[in-house]
Protein backbone atom coordinates (compact mmCIF):
# COMPACT_ATOMS: atom_id res chain seq x y z
CA UNK A 1 0.00 0.00 0.00
CA UNK A 2 1.25 3.46 -0.90
CA UNK A 3 0.36 6.78 0.67
CA UNK A 4 1.22 10.38 -0.13
CA UNK A 5 2.78 12.32 2.73
CA UNK A 6 4.49 15.66 3.26
CA UNK A 7 7.56 16.17 5.41
CA UNK A 8 9.72 19.22 6.00
CA UNK A 9 13.37 18.22 6.00
CA UNK A 10 16.04 20.76 6.90
CA UNK A 11 13.68 23.56 5.95
CA UNK A 12 12.55 22.12 2.63
CA UNK A 13 9.07 20.69 2.10
CA UNK A 14 8.80 17.31 0.35
CA UNK A 15 5.57 15.69 -0.81
CA UNK A 16 6.16 12.10 -1.76
CA UNK A 17 4.33 8.82 -2.28
CA UNK A 18 5.74 5.95 -0.24
CA UNK A 19 5.01 2.32 0.56
CA UNK A 20 3.74 2.03 4.15
CA UNK A 21 6.79 -0.13 4.98
CA UNK A 22 9.30 2.68 4.37
CA UNK A 23 10.88 4.07 7.54
CA UNK A 24 11.67 7.74 8.01
CA UNK A 25 15.34 6.76 7.78
CA UNK A 26 15.00 5.03 4.42
CA UNK A 27 12.80 7.83 3.09
CA UNK A 28 15.42 10.41 3.99
CA UNK A 29 18.40 8.50 2.66
CA UNK A 30 17.04 6.61 -0.33
CA UNK A 31 14.25 8.87 -1.64
CA UNK A 32 14.95 12.41 -0.55
CA UNK A 33 18.74 12.40 -0.95
CA UNK A 34 19.44 13.33 2.66
CA UNK A 35 22.27 11.00 3.69
CA UNK A 36 23.18 12.69 7.00
CA UNK A 37 21.31 10.21 9.24
CA UNK A 38 23.12 6.88 9.05
CA UNK A 39 21.85 3.31 9.06
CA UNK A 40 23.77 1.40 11.70
CA UNK A 41 21.81 -1.39 13.38
CA UNK A 42 18.38 -0.55 11.87
CA UNK A 43 16.81 -1.84 15.11
CA UNK A 44 16.84 1.20 17.42
CA UNK A 45 19.94 0.13 19.29
CA UNK A 46 22.80 2.30 18.01
CA UNK A 47 21.43 5.83 17.58
CA UNK A 48 23.24 6.62 14.32
CA UNK A 49 19.90 7.42 12.61
CA UNK A 50 18.95 10.08 15.18
CA UNK A 51 17.32 13.28 13.92
CA UNK A 52 15.21 15.99 15.53
CA UNK A 53 11.57 15.27 14.69
CA UNK A 54 9.19 18.06 15.67
CA UNK A 55 11.98 19.29 17.93
CA UNK A 56 12.71 16.02 19.73
CA UNK A 57 15.52 13.56 19.14
CA UNK A 58 14.28 10.20 17.86
CA UNK A 59 15.63 7.13 16.12
CA UNK A 60 14.25 7.13 12.57
CA UNK A 61 14.83 3.43 11.82
CA UNK A 62 11.84 2.35 13.93
CA UNK A 63 9.45 5.01 12.64
CA UNK A 64 7.27 4.38 9.60
CA UNK A 65 7.24 7.48 7.41
CA UNK A 66 3.44 7.36 6.96
CA UNK A 67 2.97 7.70 10.72
CA UNK A 68 4.88 10.97 10.68
CA UNK A 69 3.04 12.76 7.88
CA UNK A 70 3.39 16.50 8.46
CA UNK A 71 6.48 16.23 10.65
CA UNK A 72 9.29 18.75 10.67
CA UNK A 73 12.66 17.03 10.59
CA UNK A 74 16.09 18.52 11.19
CA UNK A 75 19.11 16.35 10.40
CA UNK A 76 22.72 17.03 11.28
CA UNK A 77 23.11 18.52 7.80
CA UNK A 78 20.35 21.03 8.54
CA UNK A 79 21.68 22.23 11.89
CA UNK A 80 24.33 24.40 10.26
CA UNK A 81 26.17 24.90 6.99
CA UNK A 82 29.80 24.49 5.94
CA UNK A 83 30.17 28.25 6.22
CA UNK A 84 28.28 28.62 9.49
CA UNK A 85 28.59 25.50 11.62
CA UNK A 86 26.22 24.86 14.50
CA UNK A 87 28.10 25.28 17.82
CA UNK A 88 27.73 21.53 18.45
CA UNK A 89 29.29 20.73 15.07
CA UNK A 90 32.18 23.12 15.75
CA UNK A 91 32.72 21.62 19.20
CA UNK A 92 32.91 18.08 17.77
CA UNK A 93 35.62 19.31 15.37
CA UNK A 94 37.52 21.19 18.08
CA UNK A 95 37.50 18.19 20.44
CA UNK A 96 38.00 15.39 17.89
CA UNK A 97 34.62 14.01 18.90
CA UNK A 98 34.85 11.23 16.33
CA UNK A 99 37.21 8.96 14.46
CA UNK A 100 35.50 7.30 11.47
CA UNK A 101 32.59 9.74 11.67
CA UNK A 102 29.79 7.30 10.90
CA UNK A 103 27.92 7.83 14.19
CA UNK A 104 28.64 11.58 14.26
CA UNK A 105 25.47 12.98 12.61
CA UNK A 106 23.39 10.96 15.05
CA UNK A 107 25.60 11.97 17.99
CA UNK A 108 25.26 15.66 17.09
CA UNK A 109 21.46 15.57 16.67
CA UNK A 110 21.15 13.57 19.86
CA UNK A 111 23.39 16.01 21.75
CA UNK A 112 21.35 19.02 20.59
CA UNK A 113 18.08 17.35 21.55
CA UNK A 114 19.57 16.12 24.83
CA UNK A 115 20.63 19.63 25.89
CA UNK A 116 17.11 20.89 25.17
CA UNK A 117 15.75 18.16 27.45
CA UNK A 118 18.30 19.01 30.15
CA UNK A 119 17.54 22.72 29.91
CA UNK A 120 13.82 21.93 30.15
CA UNK A 121 14.59 20.23 33.48
CA UNK A 122 13.87 16.65 32.44
CA UNK A 123 15.39 14.13 34.88
CA UNK A 124 17.64 11.21 33.90
CA UNK A 125 18.88 7.99 35.46
CA UNK A 126 21.97 9.94 36.58
CA UNK A 127 19.91 12.54 38.48
CA UNK A 128 20.29 12.08 42.26
CA UNK A 129 16.70 13.26 42.81
CA UNK A 130 14.23 13.02 39.92
CA UNK A 131 12.09 15.76 41.50
CA UNK A 132 14.93 18.30 41.51
CA UNK A 133 16.18 20.27 38.50
CA UNK A 134 19.08 18.33 36.95
CA UNK A 135 22.59 19.75 36.71
CA UNK A 136 24.71 19.59 33.57
CA UNK A 137 27.40 17.25 34.87
CA UNK A 138 29.56 14.87 32.80
CA UNK A 139 27.65 12.00 34.45
CA UNK A 140 24.36 13.45 33.23
CA UNK A 141 25.74 13.90 29.71
CA UNK A 142 27.10 10.34 29.57
CA UNK A 143 23.84 8.84 30.80
CA UNK A 144 21.68 10.91 28.48
CA UNK A 145 23.88 10.04 25.47
CA UNK A 146 23.88 6.29 26.14
CA UNK A 147 21.58 5.69 23.16
CA UNK A 148 24.36 6.71 20.76
CA UNK A 149 27.07 4.11 20.30
CA UNK A 150 30.53 4.98 18.92
CA UNK A 151 32.49 1.87 18.01
CA UNK A 152 35.65 3.92 17.56
CA UNK A 153 35.29 4.82 21.23
CA UNK A 154 35.44 8.61 20.94
CA UNK A 155 33.23 8.97 23.99
CA UNK A 156 35.66 11.01 26.09
CA UNK A 157 35.97 13.64 23.39
CA UNK A 158 32.25 13.54 22.60
CA UNK A 159 31.42 14.41 26.22
CA UNK A 160 34.01 17.19 26.18
CA UNK A 161 32.54 18.58 22.95
CA UNK A 162 29.01 18.56 24.35
CA UNK A 163 30.16 20.25 27.56
CA UNK A 164 31.75 23.06 25.55
CA UNK A 165 28.82 23.48 23.17
CA UNK A 166 26.46 23.67 26.16
CA UNK A 167 28.21 26.74 27.51
Amino acid sequence: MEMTITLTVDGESHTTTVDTRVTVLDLLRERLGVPAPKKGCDHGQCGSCTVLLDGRRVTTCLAFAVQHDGAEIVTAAGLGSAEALHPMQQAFLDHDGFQCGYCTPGQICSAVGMLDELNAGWPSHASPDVAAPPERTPEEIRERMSGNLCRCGAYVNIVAAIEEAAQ
Partner: protein
Amino acid sequence: MRAFEFERADDAHAAVALVAQRPKAAFLGGGTNLVDHMKLGIAAPELLVDVTRLPFDAVEERDGGVRIGGAVRNSVLSADPLIRERYPVLSEALVAGASGQLRNLATTAGNLLQRTRCLYFQDRTTPCNKRVPGSGCSAIPGNSRELGILGVSEHCIATHPSDMAVAMAALDAVVQVRGPAGAREIPIGDLHRLPGDAPQRDTTLEHGELITAVDLPAVPGASAYRKVRDRSSYAFALISVGAVLEVAAGEVADVRIALGGVAHKPWRAEHAEAQLRGGPATEDAFRAAAEAELEAATPNDDNAFKVPLARNTIVAVLRDLAGRS
Protein backbone atom coordinates in the same frame (compact mmCIF):
# COMPACT_ATOMS: atom_id res chain seq x y z
CA MET B 1 8.47 -7.20 5.67
CA ARG B 2 4.90 -8.04 4.69
CA ALA B 3 2.88 -5.29 3.05
CA PHE B 4 0.29 -3.67 5.31
CA GLU B 5 -2.41 -1.03 5.24
CA PHE B 6 -2.15 2.04 7.44
CA GLU B 7 -4.94 4.11 8.96
CA ARG B 8 -4.87 7.05 11.33
CA ALA B 9 -7.73 6.96 13.79
CA ASP B 10 -9.48 10.22 14.60
CA ASP B 11 -11.20 8.91 17.72
CA ALA B 12 -11.03 5.87 19.97
CA HIS B 13 -14.28 4.35 18.71
CA ALA B 14 -13.01 4.38 15.15
CA ALA B 15 -9.64 2.95 16.19
CA VAL B 16 -11.24 0.10 18.11
CA ALA B 17 -13.69 -0.65 15.29
CA LEU B 18 -10.91 -0.72 12.69
CA VAL B 19 -8.80 -3.21 14.67
CA ALA B 20 -11.67 -5.30 16.06
CA GLN B 21 -13.05 -6.19 12.64
CA ARG B 22 -9.72 -7.45 11.27
CA PRO B 23 -8.08 -10.40 13.06
CA LYS B 24 -4.66 -9.35 11.77
CA ALA B 25 -4.95 -5.65 12.57
CA ALA B 26 -2.91 -3.99 15.33
CA PHE B 27 -2.71 -0.63 17.06
CA LEU B 28 0.50 1.32 16.44
CA GLY B 29 1.93 3.50 19.21
CA GLY B 30 5.50 4.73 19.14
CA GLY B 31 6.53 1.67 17.15
CA THR B 32 9.76 1.06 19.02
CA ASN B 33 8.92 -2.61 19.61
CA LEU B 34 6.27 -3.48 16.99
CA VAL B 35 8.19 -2.01 14.04
CA ASP B 36 11.24 -3.98 15.14
CA HIS B 37 9.15 -7.16 15.29
CA MET B 38 7.88 -6.50 11.78
CA LYS B 39 11.46 -6.13 10.56
CA LEU B 40 12.44 -9.34 12.35
CA GLY B 41 9.53 -11.17 10.74
CA ILE B 42 7.93 -12.13 14.04
CA ALA B 43 4.89 -9.85 13.61
CA ALA B 44 3.04 -9.37 10.34
CA PRO B 45 -0.07 -7.23 10.83
CA GLU B 46 -2.20 -6.59 7.74
CA LEU B 47 -3.42 -3.27 9.06
CA LEU B 48 -1.80 -0.79 11.43
CA VAL B 49 -4.02 1.78 13.13
CA ASP B 50 -2.03 4.75 14.43
CA VAL B 51 -3.33 5.74 17.87
CA THR B 52 -0.65 8.27 18.78
CA ARG B 53 -2.79 11.24 17.75
CA LEU B 54 -5.82 10.26 19.80
CA PRO B 55 -6.60 12.70 22.64
CA PHE B 56 -5.02 10.52 25.33
CA ASP B 57 -1.88 12.61 25.67
CA ALA B 58 -2.29 14.29 29.06
CA VAL B 59 -1.17 13.66 32.63
CA GLU B 60 -3.80 15.09 34.98
CA GLU B 61 -4.93 14.99 38.58
CA ARG B 62 -8.01 12.84 39.14
CA ASP B 63 -9.76 11.64 42.32
CA GLY B 64 -6.71 12.38 44.46
CA GLY B 65 -4.48 10.44 42.10
CA VAL B 66 -3.23 10.91 38.56
CA ARG B 67 -4.55 9.77 35.18
CA ILE B 68 -1.92 9.12 32.50
CA GLY B 69 -3.12 9.08 28.89
CA GLY B 70 -2.21 6.00 26.87
CA ALA B 71 -0.47 8.10 24.21
CA VAL B 72 1.76 10.06 26.62
CA ARG B 73 5.38 9.54 25.58
CA ASN B 74 7.67 7.87 28.13
CA SER B 75 10.03 10.86 28.22
CA VAL B 76 7.21 13.33 28.82
CA LEU B 77 5.79 11.13 31.58
CA SER B 78 9.16 10.80 33.32
CA ALA B 79 9.50 14.60 33.34
CA ASP B 80 5.96 15.42 34.45
CA PRO B 81 6.01 17.43 37.72
CA LEU B 82 3.13 15.42 39.26
CA ILE B 83 4.93 12.15 38.59
CA ARG B 84 8.32 13.40 39.81
CA GLU B 85 6.87 14.77 43.04
CA ARG B 86 4.32 12.13 43.97
CA TYR B 87 5.46 8.96 42.22
CA PRO B 88 9.28 9.06 42.01
CA VAL B 89 9.32 5.27 41.59
CA LEU B 90 7.63 5.75 38.22
CA SER B 91 9.85 8.59 37.03
CA GLU B 92 12.93 6.62 38.11
CA ALA B 93 11.72 3.49 36.32
CA LEU B 94 11.04 5.38 33.10
CA VAL B 95 14.46 7.04 32.94
CA ALA B 96 16.08 3.65 33.64
CA GLY B 97 14.53 2.27 30.46
CA ALA B 98 15.76 2.36 26.86
CA SER B 99 17.44 5.54 25.56
CA GLY B 100 16.46 9.19 25.30
CA GLN B 101 15.53 8.77 21.62
CA LEU B 102 13.36 5.71 22.25
CA ARG B 103 11.64 7.29 25.25
CA ASN B 104 10.68 10.23 23.01
CA LEU B 105 8.77 7.82 20.77
CA ALA B 106 7.48 5.12 23.14
CA THR B 107 4.00 5.55 24.63
CA THR B 108 2.50 4.56 27.98
CA ALA B 109 0.15 1.99 26.44
CA GLY B 110 2.83 0.63 24.12
CA ASN B 111 5.32 0.27 26.96
CA LEU B 112 2.84 -1.94 28.85
CA LEU B 113 2.33 -4.07 25.75
CA GLN B 114 5.95 -4.51 24.72
CA ARG B 115 7.02 -8.12 24.40
CA THR B 116 9.80 -10.18 25.93
CA ARG B 117 13.39 -9.68 24.82
CA CYS B 118 14.05 -13.44 25.12
CA LEU B 119 16.61 -14.11 22.39
CA TYR B 120 14.67 -17.07 21.04
CA PHE B 121 11.38 -15.21 20.83
CA GLN B 122 13.11 -12.62 18.64
CA ASP B 123 14.83 -15.23 16.45
CA ARG B 124 12.33 -16.83 14.12
CA THR B 125 14.76 -19.62 13.16
CA THR B 126 14.41 -21.22 16.62
CA PRO B 127 11.44 -22.92 18.32
CA CYS B 128 9.50 -20.69 20.72
CA ASN B 129 6.12 -21.42 22.29
CA LYS B 130 5.37 -17.72 22.61
CA ARG B 131 5.97 -17.06 18.92
CA VAL B 132 4.76 -20.40 17.51
CA PRO B 133 2.57 -22.20 20.08
CA GLY B 134 3.53 -25.84 20.47
CA SER B 135 6.92 -25.49 18.79
CA GLY B 136 8.84 -25.88 22.05
CA CYS B 137 10.97 -23.64 24.25
CA SER B 138 14.57 -23.07 23.18
CA ALA B 139 15.41 -21.05 26.27
CA ILE B 140 14.90 -23.77 28.90
CA PRO B 141 17.75 -25.93 27.56
CA GLY B 142 19.50 -22.88 26.04
CA ASN B 143 20.69 -19.45 27.12
CA SER B 144 18.43 -18.47 30.00
CA ARG B 145 20.70 -16.21 32.02
CA GLU B 146 18.39 -13.22 31.63
CA LEU B 147 15.11 -15.13 31.94
CA GLY B 148 12.52 -15.92 34.58
CA ILE B 149 12.80 -17.49 38.03
CA LEU B 150 9.26 -16.96 39.37
CA GLY B 151 5.96 -18.14 37.92
CA VAL B 152 7.64 -19.87 34.99
CA SER B 153 6.14 -22.89 33.21
CA GLU B 154 7.53 -25.85 31.32
CA HIS B 155 6.44 -24.01 28.16
CA CYS B 156 8.03 -20.59 28.70
CA ILE B 157 10.47 -18.79 31.01
CA ALA B 158 10.30 -15.39 29.32
CA THR B 159 10.43 -12.18 31.35
CA HIS B 160 8.45 -9.00 30.81
CA PRO B 161 10.97 -6.29 29.85
CA SER B 162 9.24 -3.13 31.06
CA ASP B 163 10.62 -0.97 33.86
CA MET B 164 7.57 1.32 33.80
CA ALA B 165 5.18 -1.57 34.37
CA VAL B 166 7.09 -2.68 37.48
CA ALA B 167 6.70 0.77 39.01
CA MET B 168 3.00 0.83 38.07
CA ALA B 169 2.56 -2.60 39.69
CA ALA B 170 4.05 -1.26 42.92
CA LEU B 171 1.67 1.72 42.69
CA ASP B 172 -1.48 -0.42 42.28
CA ALA B 173 -2.24 1.24 38.95
CA VAL B 174 -5.53 0.63 37.15
CA VAL B 175 -5.51 0.27 33.38
CA GLN B 176 -8.40 1.86 31.44
CA VAL B 177 -9.36 -0.10 28.35
CA ARG B 178 -11.83 0.49 25.54
CA GLY B 179 -12.93 -2.37 23.32
CA PRO B 180 -15.66 -3.45 20.93
CA ALA B 181 -17.89 -4.32 23.93
CA GLY B 182 -17.30 -0.99 25.68
CA ALA B 183 -14.97 0.31 28.36
CA ARG B 184 -13.58 -1.60 31.33
CA GLU B 185 -10.81 -1.21 33.87
CA ILE B 186 -8.17 -3.76 34.78
CA PRO B 187 -6.01 -3.69 37.94
CA ILE B 188 -2.46 -3.78 36.58
CA GLY B 189 -1.79 -7.07 38.37
CA ASP B 190 -4.45 -8.66 36.17
CA LEU B 191 -3.26 -7.12 32.88
CA HIS B 192 -0.22 -9.32 32.30
CA ARG B 193 -0.39 -13.12 32.52
CA LEU B 194 1.87 -15.89 33.70
CA PRO B 195 2.83 -18.15 30.78
CA GLY B 196 1.15 -21.41 31.88
CA ASP B 197 0.31 -23.45 28.79
CA ALA B 198 -0.49 -20.36 26.67
CA PRO B 199 2.67 -18.24 26.62
CA GLN B 200 1.59 -16.72 23.29
CA ARG B 201 -0.76 -14.54 25.34
CA ASP B 202 1.13 -11.81 27.21
CA THR B 203 -1.96 -10.10 28.59
CA THR B 204 -5.65 -10.58 29.35
CA LEU B 205 -6.66 -8.04 26.68
CA GLU B 206 -8.98 -9.21 23.93
CA HIS B 207 -8.34 -8.40 20.28
CA GLY B 208 -9.43 -4.84 19.56
CA GLU B 209 -9.09 -3.60 23.13
CA LEU B 210 -7.18 -0.33 23.38
CA ILE B 211 -5.44 0.99 26.50
CA THR B 212 -6.64 4.58 26.81
CA ALA B 213 -5.19 5.53 30.21
CA VAL B 214 -3.48 4.34 33.37
CA ASP B 215 -4.76 5.61 36.72
CA LEU B 216 -2.48 5.92 39.72
CA PRO B 217 -4.14 6.13 43.15
CA ALA B 218 -2.70 8.38 45.84
CA VAL B 219 0.21 6.65 47.56
CA PRO B 220 1.39 7.13 51.14
CA GLY B 221 5.06 6.92 51.99
CA ALA B 222 8.22 7.10 49.94
CA SER B 223 8.85 5.20 46.72
CA ALA B 224 11.90 4.22 44.69
CA TYR B 225 13.04 2.10 41.75
CA ARG B 226 16.35 0.29 41.51
CA LYS B 227 17.56 -1.55 38.41
CA VAL B 228 20.47 -3.98 38.24
CA ARG B 229 21.84 -4.69 34.76
CA ASP B 230 24.96 -5.76 32.92
CA ARG B 231 25.97 -2.17 32.12
CA SER B 232 25.03 1.05 33.83
CA SER B 233 22.78 2.40 31.07
CA TYR B 234 20.67 1.32 28.09
CA ALA B 235 20.20 -2.34 29.04
CA PHE B 236 17.31 -4.46 30.22
CA ALA B 237 17.03 -5.42 33.87
CA LEU B 238 18.55 -8.56 35.30
CA ILE B 239 16.66 -7.63 38.45
CA SER B 240 14.68 -4.52 39.26
CA VAL B 241 12.69 -3.50 42.30
CA GLY B 242 9.99 -0.86 42.55
CA ALA B 243 8.74 -0.27 46.06
CA VAL B 244 6.56 1.96 48.20
CA LEU B 245 7.17 2.04 51.97
CA GLU B 246 5.48 3.88 54.80
CA VAL B 247 7.05 3.55 58.25
CA ALA B 248 5.37 4.74 61.45
CA ALA B 249 7.03 4.46 64.87
CA GLY B 250 9.58 2.01 63.52
CA GLU B 251 6.94 -0.30 62.08
CA VAL B 252 5.90 -0.97 58.50
CA ALA B 253 2.54 0.78 58.06
CA ASP B 254 2.32 0.04 54.33
CA VAL B 255 4.58 -1.64 51.81
CA ARG B 256 4.29 -2.62 48.13
CA ILE B 257 7.11 -4.39 46.34
CA ALA B 258 7.23 -5.26 42.64
CA LEU B 259 10.05 -7.12 40.87
CA GLY B 260 11.18 -6.87 37.27
CA GLY B 261 13.40 -9.28 35.35
CA VAL B 262 12.08 -12.31 37.22
CA ALA B 263 8.77 -13.30 35.62
CA HIS B 264 6.41 -13.18 32.65
CA LYS B 265 4.75 -10.19 34.36
CA PRO B 266 5.76 -7.55 36.89
CA TRP B 267 5.92 -9.67 40.04
CA ARG B 268 4.17 -8.31 43.14
CA ALA B 269 5.98 -9.73 46.18
CA GLU B 270 2.77 -10.31 48.13
CA HIS B 271 4.27 -12.84 50.54
CA ALA B 272 7.02 -10.41 51.47
CA GLU B 273 4.54 -7.56 51.84
CA ALA B 274 2.25 -9.59 54.12
CA GLN B 275 5.17 -10.65 56.27
CA LEU B 276 6.39 -7.07 56.64
CA ARG B 277 3.11 -5.24 57.36
CA GLY B 278 2.85 -4.28 61.01
CA GLY B 279 6.32 -5.60 61.76
CA PRO B 280 9.62 -3.86 62.44
CA ALA B 281 11.15 -1.83 59.60
CA THR B 282 14.60 -3.34 60.01
CA GLU B 283 17.13 -4.78 57.61
CA ASP B 284 16.75 -8.23 59.17
CA ALA B 285 13.01 -8.12 58.61
CA PHE B 286 13.47 -6.95 55.01
CA ARG B 287 15.89 -9.82 54.32
CA ALA B 288 13.64 -12.43 55.90
CA ALA B 289 10.65 -11.18 53.90
CA ALA B 290 12.63 -11.20 50.65
CA GLU B 291 13.80 -14.74 51.32
CA ALA B 292 10.25 -15.84 52.04
CA GLU B 293 9.13 -14.40 48.71
CA LEU B 294 11.93 -16.09 46.81
CA GLU B 295 11.30 -19.54 48.29
CA ALA B 296 8.99 -20.09 45.33
CA ALA B 297 11.79 -19.37 42.83
CA THR B 298 12.66 -22.15 40.37
CA PRO B 299 15.88 -20.94 38.76
CA ASN B 300 18.22 -23.02 36.61
CA ASP B 301 22.02 -23.03 36.57
CA ASP B 302 22.20 -20.01 34.24
CA ASN B 303 19.99 -17.70 36.25
CA ALA B 304 20.34 -18.96 39.82
CA PHE B 305 22.33 -15.79 40.55
CA LYS B 306 19.08 -13.86 40.27
CA VAL B 307 17.77 -15.26 43.56
CA PRO B 308 20.38 -13.66 45.86
CA LEU B 309 20.49 -10.63 43.54
CA ALA B 310 16.74 -10.12 43.91
CA ARG B 311 16.96 -10.60 47.68
CA ASN B 312 19.78 -8.09 48.03
CA THR B 313 18.10 -5.55 45.77
CA ILE B 314 14.83 -5.75 47.72
CA VAL B 315 16.75 -5.24 50.97
CA ALA B 316 18.71 -2.30 49.54
CA VAL B 317 15.60 -0.51 48.26
CA LEU B 318 13.60 -1.02 51.48
CA ARG B 319 16.56 0.01 53.65
CA ASP B 320 16.93 3.16 51.56
CA LEU B 321 13.21 3.97 51.82
CA ALA B 322 13.13 3.25 55.57
CA GLY B 323 16.05 5.64 56.02
CA ARG B 324 13.96 8.42 54.49
CA SER B 325 10.88 7.87 56.70
